[in-house]
């Protein structure tokens, strides 16, 4: 049986920063099949991208906290995005994150999984709130 990670609930991630160049906005819109009508205003998914890229850890470092790596194929199980205002290119944002929950799930026919909820707040500069992201990452542990 793999280790339990409930002790990480409440762990605060290093504060990180995020900024998007115009070409990154265009490329992301293209990758998402989104309209290119105004690439200076960022697609709402950039709140999620800000959380992932600006959280102060790389994804690989986040996975490592839970004894996993990208090669294990961790998945995104759920996400909630709340946006108070639009985001824009060439603007500095700050990302605050913490581990909100860790739950181990056992199934009769599926692998044991750890569901890790990470909550992020994205701020303009480091003051005005822009939005929040809550994501549940799924780490498969073993086949039963």
């Amino acid at each position: 049986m793999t280790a339990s990670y409930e002790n990480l609930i409440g762990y605060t991630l290093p504060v990180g920063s995020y900024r998007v160049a115009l070409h990154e906005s265009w490329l992301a819109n293209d990758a998402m099949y989104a309209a290119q009508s105004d690439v200076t205003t960022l697609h709402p998914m950039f709140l999620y991208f800000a959380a992932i890229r600006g959280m102060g850890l790389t994804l690989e470092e986040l996975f490592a906290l839970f004894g996993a790596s990208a090669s294990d194929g961790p998945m995104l199980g759920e996400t909630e995005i709340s946006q108070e205002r639009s985001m824009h290119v060439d603007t500095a944002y700050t990302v605050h994150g913490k581990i909100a929950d860790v739950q181990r799930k056992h199934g009769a026919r599926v692998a044991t999984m750890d569901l890790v909820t990470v909550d992020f707040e994205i701020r303009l500069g480091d003051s005005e709130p822009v939005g929040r992201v809550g994501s549940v990452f799924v780490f498969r542990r073993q086949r039963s």
Partner: protein
Amino acid sequence: MSFSVGQALPVLEIASVSVEKMKVMALLLDDPNPIHFDPQAVQSLGLGNRPINQGPNSLAYVINMLMAAGGEGALITRTSVRFMANVFARDRLHAGGTVTRIDGNTITCDVWLKRGDDVIVQGNATIALPPEAT
């Protein structure tokens, strides 16, 4: 576009999910997970034989549908979804939704992303329309 409770939002089609777009997204997200670009990694994990789309990409299709429905000036203020199944390269998808509540300029919807009859993404979302839209 005007809205009423129970109204179906216009469906958005992704005719074929491109693995090349997954690769761009992997770079933009600095996402090292090989299931998004390496078919052999997908096979070795027992997850199929085609690269698997990033969950955020699949959610983006739902948000694109909402943005098209809301029109210029609308803000998608909240989106909450569960990812029920994987999307694979070359999948044909449809995103849609149904209006469940209208409160002034705020429209709440149930939303989904489907591959045929299979629900891939399911949840709800809120659109804040610009004042002149209502």
